[in-house]
């Protein structure tokens, strides 16, 4: 039996137009990693449970393992690689993670950052005046599993970044 057919797609990733030819069954996560070599997006379960693959699609966080790349055609995707500045200077969230030991092995980290980013952006949109309390932060990242840190450093990092 011959290999399954491919579909041409075009989408915007981290502000750049990217094209590819993909099997419809290829997930966005695999497309980013294997075709675009953006390996910062990690795959930890392919079931939607771990959150390691979290990216932003048209400005909201999604599981890139539960989205086929063909579905992202014409859409705008942001990955962890979009956070740091052109010379590698860390995003305030990344800087806070670094200062607060918000990571150990780093595998969950990209997904954590993208979930934290959504929290930061949605609070900005809503014009939230008070910084989020610990419970709100924990709820925002509860879909991202970290096996290493016990979450404390991550929660501290996000609290610090959203305070400043």
């Amino acid at each position: 039996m011959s290999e399954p057919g491919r579909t041409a797609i075009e989408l915007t990733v981290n502000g750049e137009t990217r094209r590819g030819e993909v099997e419809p069954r290829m997930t966005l996560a695999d497309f980013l990693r294997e075709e675009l070599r953006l390996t910062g997006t990690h795959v930890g379960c392919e079931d939607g449970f771990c959150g390691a693959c979290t990216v932003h699609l048209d400005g909201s966080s999604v599981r890139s393992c539960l989205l086929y790349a063909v579905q992202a055609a014409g859409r705008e995707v942001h990955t962890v690689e979009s956070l740091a500045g052109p010379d590698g200077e860390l995003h305030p969230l990344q800087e806070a993670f670094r200062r607060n030991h918000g990571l150990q092995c780093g595998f969950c980290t990209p997904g954590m950052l993208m979930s934290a980013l959504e929290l930061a952006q949605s609070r900005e949109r809503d014009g939230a005046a008070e910084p989020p309390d610990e419970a709100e932060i924990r709820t925002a990242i509860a879909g991202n599993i970290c096996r290493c840190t016990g979450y404390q450093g991550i929660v501290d990092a996000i609290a610090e970044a959203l305070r400043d």
Partner: protein
Amino acid sequence: MARLDAARLLRGQGHYIADIERVGMLHACFVRSPHAHARLGAVDGGAALALEGVVAVLAAADFPHRPLLDSVRIEGLRKTPQPALASERVRFQGEPVAVVLASSRARAEDGAELVRVEYEPLAPVLDAEAAAAGAGPDLFEGGNLLYRGEIVAGDVEGAFAAADHVVSARYHGNRYAAVPMEARGCVAEHDPGSGELTLWCSTQGPHQLRRRRSQTVGLPESHIRVIAPDVGGAFGQKIPAHAEEVAIALAARAVGRPVRWIEDRLENLLAAPHAKEQLIETELALAADGTFLGLRARILGDAGAYSHNSTSALIEPYLSAGLMPGVYAVRDYSCEILAAVTNKSPVAPYRGVGWTAGHTARELLIEKAARHLGVDPAALRRRNMVDAFPYESCTGMLYDSGSYVASLDRALAEIGYEELHRDRGAPAVGEPAVGVGVSPYVEPTGWGSDGALQSRWSFASHDSVRIEIDPSGAVTAAVGTPSQGQGHETMLAQIVADGLGVELDRVRVVSGDTAGTPISTAGTRASRTAVVVGGALALAAEELRAKLERIAAYLLGAEPEDVRIEAGRVAVAGDPDREATLREVAEAAFYDPALRARMPDPSLSVSRFHDPPASYANGCVVAMVEVDVETGAVTLRRLLSVEDCGTVVNPALVDGQVRGALVQGVGGALLEQVRYGEDGALLSGDLRRYKLPKATDVPAIELHHECSPSPFTVNGMKGVGESGAIAAPAAVAAAVADAVAHLGVEIESLPIDTGRIVAAAAGEGS
């Protein structure tokens, strides 16, 4: 002090195993047994090979190799060889039977579905107790009980005969698993010209893996290079040499192309090693005043389908038995140790290996004894604690130093134990039941050969390190123990920088590649890196510093003892004008011919072997829970730990280790369990059913520190990293037991059986 490699990982620039690509690389998918126990017939890959993109289907017969055998030398332990791919018999659901190589992982999965395998199902053996008793079909010739032995210390019979109270308990420690967020995986590439095999592998012990590979694949170790890239969590699961990794190495050689295998989550939960399951019976003899007179135990380890190649079927019950007395001054102790095979995924190390279940069983026994005697459980513990050091335990462990009582008292004070424990009867209607659990621990750390020996374990430990300075003055420290996120590079670099007197950013620590690093037979495990490797680096740095001082003395025209090296500047004491840079000193070592006449060996490279004596960390974990007894919902309100791991090099890294381990312990107490159906099929094959703690399941963790430097190790360091995994389950379990005591519910297994609480609250039996 922040980690040196953090920025790279935060930007998404890490290189994990799944990020590695080689030219012409094929993707592997294993065909795994759907049966827990079956005779294996023919494997037919014909239909799979007919798919475009499928390159090969390989079964055991396609690459002859030596099976994996456990490396432990303990008398009376029967060995159970495990082939890389099953032949003749499959012994657990998920055991690899064949491997399909294809153009993509998706295509390999298409192929794997089409491989036809003949199975003749056999009855599965799932109950370790029945297996030990000889019931059910044998997994191996000679029966399912692989080991029976005992520890006897002092006069146990006498102690029990003299007792005023005897309290006994049973505990079924749950089978759970490390579940690193990055599952296992490897890439193998064979160079037919040189005959060299390169293996990138998500592993904790590259050198051990190289040796195992050499034994099974039949290549000399010199022809095998193992590289551990960034590892996305390991916790013990990546210590063993895995059957799949052997198969991938063989497959790459067989097809002459690089092959990558990335384990998916289903495979990881199904076929990666499980951990910790033990069935424990305990009995405590007490005097009327609460003094512990004697302790008896029987520990049965459920080893799963093979005596694991890296460790053996004994890894759980044997280590459990050795530490059973814990922080208590028990002299009269006996323990029967058994290990049986069952049709489940084999058991291998996971953080706190062996110790978690034994510790929990003992602490729950003490809780029960306190309730029986009507005394405060914390006071009962304090009364029986070891309080003078060094102390040789009745099982032969030399507790070097510690703050057992001080840590307990500190923990009680910080949690406000007295307040919490005062006048607490049954909760008011509609109010949650509150409970507090105290779990003081001692943790063997820094395993070298002495530490292993004190745990009566056969464990090959041989570690050397190398520090080199290049002509530019840059320092490279090469170690055989890679990091899986503990931040070892940073901590080790600090030790080197301190030892040499140079700036931290001048030091680079390399690890993980057998081609460029000195051997560490054991790798990163057993809370040993700081003590063993850090100790070796401190010694090597001292030696190298002396060399630098001699060269500098020559350059500056001074005596070596007058040379001072500080923050990378070299100067003569009392003469600030005479100074040099480290670069000038290093350049002289390499390029100054005149130096050679005075110093025949000016090389700036020092290797050092180190095998420190055993050391023991200690501390106390306290948990406070609220239980909604009507629904069984348990909320962990507070989690507090007092840690004493001697001298600390990098407090932030230590705290990270402690917190991570604590939360893994909480998972084991409240959520995590590998489940099998009666047919031996796994029921916990995704992260919905295998529940890891989320951010909302744990409170802010409260950490406090005591410091009892080890009198035996370099700088007084002790290891850290497992205490929470050992002690937190007991703290949480004891807290729940405390909360539901008014209902007459005992905790006899973990994770907490909420069904029993709910039934008792409804006034019914479960």
